[in-house]
């Protein structure tokens, strides 16, 4: 997988199977497979078109792009919250059409249930466990996010960062194979965000779920991801893929980090620039252009 693949494939003729648009690492069976995924709304708006993505076990992929390029739509389709107009999503080979036990989600807002205390929220999704098992898992998760002392507090008593930590713990405690995060830190200040990045990576290192995180923050993408996939809007498509290739923990002032940020910025820049010039003006003429 190289940085250039995304750009190269734009010039290729469209394969008949349409599966050639995969942004993939290229080896092993993917945990998460997205093939030819499209979403058209009832009013004819095309939110996503022909998305292909495969993500390996334990890999962290960041989807990046401006608003309106379908990042959240894509995540909701993978989560099974919405139905695709075409194409498939598979987790471990099983098609996803509705929320799946192996797929966890952290939303942009914490979405904690205000009538449950912190521990109750963390354990909300745990089913089929004995009381003791449940309590142990919740206690462990609370400890990992540094909220052991706060299990009995109400969500409204927590700061925004703490609430989002609880939401992350709630997702992790169910031990998902694939964890989807939809701009989970976008409402937080830079200091809080940095702390949460570390805790997220901490939790991830324990069970190594596959993570797809949507963000519009290049620094966040480079800090967290193995691969950064750039999306472009109208309709939402995957553009270039940038492999980060840095070991963890990552040092944000290292030259290699800076270089990775520059590569992502350059890819973002390319995804924005040709949009007006070489993109087809209307869907009808697209076939000819391809």
């Amino acid at each position, binding site marked *: 997988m190289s940085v250039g693949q995304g750009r190269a494939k734009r010039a290729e003729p469209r394969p008949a199977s349409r599966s050639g648009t995969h942004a993939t690492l290229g080896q092993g069976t993917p945990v998460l497979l997205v093939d030819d995924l499209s979403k058209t709304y009832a009013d004819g708006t095309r939110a996503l078109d022909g998305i292909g993505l495969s993500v390996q076990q334990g890999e962290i992929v960041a989807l990046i792009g401006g608003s309106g390029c379908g990042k959240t739509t894509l995540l909701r389709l993978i989560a099974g919250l919405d139905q695709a107009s075409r194409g498939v999503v598979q987790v471990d080979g099983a098609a996803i059409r509705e929320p799946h036990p192996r797929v966890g989600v952290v939303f942009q807002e914490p*979405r904690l249930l*205000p009538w449950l205390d912190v521990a109750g929220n963390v354990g909300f999704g745990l089913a089929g466990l004995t009381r003791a098992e449940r309590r142990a898992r919740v206690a462990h998760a609370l400890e990992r996010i540094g909220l052991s002392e706060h299990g009995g507090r*109400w969500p409204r008593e927590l700061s925004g960062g703490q609430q989002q930590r609880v939401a992350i713990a709630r997702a992790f405690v169910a031990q998902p194979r694939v964890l989807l995060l939809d701009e989970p830190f976008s409402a937080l200040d830079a200091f809080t965000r940095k702390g949460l990045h570390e805790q997220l990576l901490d939790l991830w290192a324990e069970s190594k779920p596959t993570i797809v995180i949507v963000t519009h923050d290049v620094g966040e993408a480079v800090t967290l991801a193995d691969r950064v996939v750039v999306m472009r809007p109208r309709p939402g498509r995957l553009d270039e893929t940038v492999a980060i290739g840095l070991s963890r923990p990552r040092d944000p002032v290292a030259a290699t980090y800076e270089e990775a940020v520059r590569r992502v910025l350059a890819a973002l820049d390319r995804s924005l620039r040709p949009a007006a010039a070489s993109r087809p003006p209307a869907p009808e003429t697209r076939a000819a252009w391809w």
Partner: protein
Amino acid sequence: MRGPPLLRRGARAGLGLLLPLVLAVGWEIAVATGAASGRLLPPPSRIGATLWDLAASGDLRMHVEATLIRVGLGFLCGAAAGILAGALVATIPALRWLIDPSLQALRAVPSLAWVPLFILWFGILETPKVLLIAVGVFFPVYVAVSGAIASVDRKLVEVGRIFRLSRLALARRILLPAVLPATLVGLRTGLGLGFLFVVAAELMGASEGLGYLLVDGQQFSKPDQIMAAIIAFALAGKLADMALIALTLPLTRWQDTARESL
């Protein structure tokens, strides 16, 4: 439960009592010194004496019991119907289109307008009284429940979907707690209206109950008895409201505003 220091709270409550106390003492003095006759508005001491006599003879207890039973029955029926109808209408669109317009139209009828019809249909015994109270309780509960269910945060429902809750579990673990606060507000409003309507119900003919004391006091020109009945109504209503809050407070402990608004 954090609040202002006890002293300051006590001072505030005392300030609230100051006005009625001054008025009562003033009236007492005015009647005692002969400045006012106190025939139509008896002084507090006479009202107190009447209340005491009623209590001592056991009459007060009988009347309060009769009234509370009517309010209780009417409240139970009205609240149950309101919750059921509200839940059905909010969750089944076809039902909403079918019956909500009719219910809203009926709601616009002043409930006392039903009195003559109820008397014609059910006579003047207990049935029309309980029914009238139930009608009064029904509407605020219905409106509160259907509104609360309709405005449940879709984002929280999505959390339930992510964890694959069944429809039943979704209702129990997300919808129910989410609509509880608004439902309780509706129940309180309903209970208040229940006390409003029990007066009307007992005015239409009763041989016992606080409303009967009112009518009796008017017919035999006993303003002290009327005042005693009014005070008993106020106390009974306030105590019932407090009981409802005490029963439901554990359910809304999580709410930021619960303590202030209740």
